[in-house]
């Protein structure tokens, strides 16, 4: 299937799903006017890819510096999809990049780690001021 790319805007993140390389990333900030309108197509693409992928090592680089409450719920659904695939068909590494000072995003990541045990979760602190 084709790779999926959305350019970053002031209120929505860059989505770079390189399905051909099994490398997926999300970078930027997420507070679109309607989180469902933005994320449902992204979830659809991801689900289609996961449904057709077996025995791969998939790497997901998560690099969001801010997401609003509606986006948070969508992200939770997204990690649920990854976890389901990681429990049965693929190995999935989730690299959780967060700013050194950002406890909110680190805590959310730790919640993801607790709730979705099949994911190979790595929290990576870095200076994201320039991301």
């Amino acid at each position, binding site marked *: 299937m084709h790779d999926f790319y959305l350019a970053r805007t*002031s*209120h929505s993140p860059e989505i770079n799903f390189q399905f051909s390389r099994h490398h997926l990333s999300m970078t930027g900030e997420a*507070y679109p*006017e309607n*989180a469902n309108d933005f994320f449902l197509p992204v979830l659809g693409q991801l689900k289609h890819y996961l449904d057709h992928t077996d025995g791969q090592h998939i790497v997901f680089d998560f690099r969001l510096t*801010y997401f*609003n*409450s*509606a986006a*948070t*719920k969508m992200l*939770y659904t997204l990690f649920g999809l990854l976890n389901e695939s990681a429990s049965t068909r693929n190995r999935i590494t989730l690299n959780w990049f967060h*700013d050194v*000072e*950002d*406890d*909110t995003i680190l*805590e959310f990541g730790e*919640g993801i780690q607790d*709730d979705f045990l099949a994911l190979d979760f790595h929290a990576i602190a870095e200076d994201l*001021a320039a991301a």
Partner: protein
Amino acid sequence: MQLDLFSAFRNSADFNGVLFYYNGQLSQNVINTMSDTLKHRLENEEAAQAKARKLFSSFIEMVQNALHYSPPDPDGNGEKVGAVAVGKQDNKFYIVCGNLVESQYAARIREKIEPLRSMTLDEIKKAYRAQLKNDQHENEDSVSKGAGLGFLTVARDASEPIEYSLMNVPAHDELAYFYLKAIV
């Protein structure tokens, strides 16, 4: 506006540490412009990054809430309107947002906010996690357009209990003015 009244308005804003004030039509474009302005203002404030992020988060939750739930201004051209102020007092940031709501939802707003006011931060975080995992939200709450996490997010990011007020709108029994304040 007479210049002396404008001067009094400006002095009062200064006295209350107002960094940013907006009153008028609400749209996603207005919100985007305000977000950019607020980000720049915060960069110049030398606020701790963590605090600036929490303030920004509360700002977005409040203004998007106002945009999603407020009915059109009855005296306008069907526009949604709101007022928002961000300021700094005693080394803490505050944010106040005011918008119209339908009076029929006033009790619902009270029910959602009142419990948050007496919860500890740990309790708020637990409630947030529970709501995040709640798959039944859409069925349980037909009024909500989001994930039911908005007020919880504002309460989580605040350093003091959030404050709110619901006030009558003269000549419009079907409407109320809803004010929400958070201190970060």
